[in-house]
C-alpha cells in the first residue's frame, strides 16, 4: 500500500501522462465526463458518477471500423488501426469496473471483437473507492463492493491523501512507473474508510433490492407479465438510459459517405429507438412497450441466462438520475416483485 498527497495528484497525472494516455473524469461546462488528461483540464474526482460512464474508453460511442474506396468499380478496404499503446483509465468506480466485466462477456466471447480486445489489452484500470455513495447507488444488490474496487489498481481518497494499491501485474507495472511519487503507507486508514463506506451503503434506500424474482421465474413468465404494459407508458423513447449506462453494449453499423470514400463506423445504439429492429420486411418490436421490455429483460433475464447468472446491471444509478421521465431499472425491479 502506497499513498500520495491529494495536492500532488497533478504531478502523478503528469507522470502517468508523460508515458501513456490518461483518461479520467474531467469537468467541462459543468459536467464531469471521462476525457484525456491535459495540463489545463479540470480534473474532477469528487463527482461520484460521471455522466457518461468510462465505457467510452473501451467501446467508444462511435468508431470507424474501416474505410472503403471505390475506384473505377474496384473496392479497396482499409481497416482502422487497433489500439496498440497502453493507456490508463483513472478514477473508475467499483460499479464501472464491474461493467467492464459485463462488456467483456459480450465482446471477448468467441468470436472476439478485436477492436474492443485491443483496448482491453492495453487499458490499465485504476479504480477509486466511493467515499460518499449516493441515494441512487445500488451496486450492493449485484454483489459489488464499492469500498473494494477490483481493478488493476485500487485507490482510496482518505482525508488529504490518496491511497494506492496495485492488484494485478498491470497495476504493479503502472505503480513502478510512478513509484518515485508514492510513499509507503499502512492500511489502517484505508480499512477504516472501507468500514465507513460499507456502513453508508447499508443505509442506502436501494441497497436491499431483491432480485430473486428474476432468478426464480421462467423467462416466459416474466416476458408475459402484464406489468410491462403498466410501466412503460411514461417512457419517451429517448436513449438517455442506454447511453449513460455502463453496460449497454448494443451498437449499430453505418456508412458515412465522406465524398472521397465511405467510412463504415459503428456507434452506440439504443433498443429504445423505434428503428432499432426496423428492417425492409418490417419491425418485430413495434410498440414502445416491447422495446422497454426488451431493455430490462435483457439486463435482468436474457443476459444472466447466457452468462451464468451475472446481471448486466451494476447498480451505478446513472439511469436513476438521468431519465427524463424518472423511469429506471429500480422501479422495474420493484414492480416486478423485488421490493426490499
Amino acid at each position, binding site marked *: 500500500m502506497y499513498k500520495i498527497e491529494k495536492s500532488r495528484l497533478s504531478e502523478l497525472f503528469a507522470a502517468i501522462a508523460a508515458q501513456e494516455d490518461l483518461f479520467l473524469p474531467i469537468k467541462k461546462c459543468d459536467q464531469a465526463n471521462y476525457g484525456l488528461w491535459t495540463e489545463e483540464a479540470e480534473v474532477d474526482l469528487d463527482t461520484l458518477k460521471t455522466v457518461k460512464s468510462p465505457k467510452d474508453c473501451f467501446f467508444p460511442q462511435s468508431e470507424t*471500423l474501416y474505410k472503403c474506396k471505390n475506384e473505377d468499380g474496384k473496392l479497396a478496404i482499409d481497416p482502422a488501426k487497433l489500439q496498440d499503446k497502453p493507456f490508463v483509465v483513472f478514477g473508475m468506480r467499483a460499479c464501472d469496473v464491474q461493467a467492464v466485466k459485463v462488456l467483456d462477456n459480450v465482446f471477448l466471447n468467441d468470436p472476439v*471483437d478485436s477492436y474492443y480486445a*485491443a483496448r482491453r489489452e492495453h487499458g490499465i484500470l485504476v479504480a477509486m473507492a466511493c467515499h460518499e455513495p449516493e441515494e441512487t447507488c445500488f451496486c450492493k444488490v449485484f454483489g459489488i463492493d464499492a469500498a473494494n474496487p477490483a481493478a488493476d489498481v485500487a485507490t482510496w481518497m482518505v482525508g488529504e491523501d490518496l491511497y494506492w494499491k496495485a492488484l494485478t501485474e498491470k497495476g504493479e507495472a503502472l505503480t513502478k512507473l510512478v513509484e518515485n511519487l508514492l510513499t509507503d503507507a499502512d492500511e489502517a486508514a484505508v480499512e477504516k474508510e472501507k468500514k465507513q463506506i460499507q456502513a453508508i451503503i447499508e443505509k442506502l434506500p436501494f441497497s436491499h433490492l431483491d432480485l430473486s424474482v428474476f432468478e426464480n421465474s421462467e423467462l416466459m413468465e416474466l416476458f408475459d407479465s402484464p406489468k410491462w404494459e403498466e410501466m412503460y407508458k411514461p417512457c419517451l423513447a429517448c436513449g438517455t438510459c442506454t447511453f449513460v449506462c455502463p453496460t449497454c453494449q448494443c*451498437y449499430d453499423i453505418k456508412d458515412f459517405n465522406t465524398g472521397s470514400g465511405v467510412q463504415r463506423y459503428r456507434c452506440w445504439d439504443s433498443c429504445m429507438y423505434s428503428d*432499432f429492429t426496423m428492417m425492409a420486411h418490417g419491425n418485430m418490436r413495434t410498440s414502445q412497450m416491447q422495446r422497454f421490455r426488451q431493455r430490462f429483460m435483457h439486463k435482468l433475464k436474457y443476459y444472466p441466462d447466457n452468462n451464468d447468472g451475472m446481471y448486466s446491471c451494476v447498480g451505478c444509478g446513472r439511469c436513476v438520475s438521468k431519465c427524463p421521465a424518472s423511469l429506471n431499472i429500480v422501479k422495474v425491479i420493484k414492480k416486478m416483485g423485488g421490493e426490499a
Partner: protein
Amino acid sequence: MGECTCGGNHGREMLIPMIGVITDIRTETPDVKTFRVVGRDGKKLFEHMPGQCAMVSVPGVGEAMFSITSSPTNKEFQEFSIKRCGTLTDCLHGMSVGDELTVRGPYGNAFPVEQEGALKGENLLFIAGGIGLAPLRSVINYVLDNRDNYGTVEILYGSRSADDLVQLKEIQEVWCKTEGVDVYLTIDREQEGWDGHVGFVPSYLKEIGFQTNKKVLICGPPIMIKFVLAGLLEMGFSKEQVYTTLELKMKCGIGKCGRCNIGSKYVCKDGPVFRFDEIDELPPEY
C-alpha cells in the same frame, strides 16, 4: 495496421469483409435475382454449411444478412437469391456482372444435415413459399449431392404466381428429374399457361397428406409458416420434427450488436435455424 493481438481469434476478420465479385446474375422472377459471387482470385470466398448466412454489403448503401442459396457442395462459388424490397436490395438489383461488393461470413448455425438423428439418414420434406426457397435450396442441393445419406426427398413449393417461382429452371430440370425426389408446385391464383396445382401451400399440404415418418424444413413468409405448422401438427407431426430458419434485423452477425435476439437467443449466432419445439420456449418476437 497494428498486429492482431487477439490470440488467434477472428473478431477483427468478423467485422472486416472480403471483397466479392459478381460473376453471374440470373433474373428469377420480376423481383428476385440470383447473384453468383466469388473472390477477386476467382475462387470461392469461404466454406459454409447449408442454412448459414452472410452479410452482403454495398459500401455507402448498406449491409444486410442474406442466406446463402448455393450448396456447400458447390466448390466454385456462392449464390445469393435476393428479393428487391429495400434500399440495399434495390441497389443490388441495379448491379451488373463484374461489379464488386463486400461479403463477410458465414454466420449462424446450419441445418443439422450431418447430425445423425436430426436430418442425416432421415426422409425429408421441404416446404417453401416465395423467396423462402433461398435457404432451403442450399439444403436440397446438399442432400441431392449426398443422396445416399438421406431417405426420400419431397419438395412442396408455392408462390404467388408462376412468374414468382424462384429457381424454376433448376426445379424442373434437375430436382424433378432426380430419382426419389417428388416435387409439388403450387401457385396462389389461376394463371394462363399454368396447368399445375392452384392454391395456398398450407391447403395443398393437407391435400397431399404426407406421412409423418420424416423431418420437415420450412421457410417462407411468417403467415405461411404459421398455417403450415398448424397443418403439420394436425397431420400428426410433432414440433421436434420441424425445422425453420428465421430472419431478423442484424448488424454485426456475431451476437454482439444486440438486436436480433429472441429472448436470450441471438438469431445470428444461435440461429437462424431453429426447431419448432425450441422456438416454443422463446418470446414471440420474430
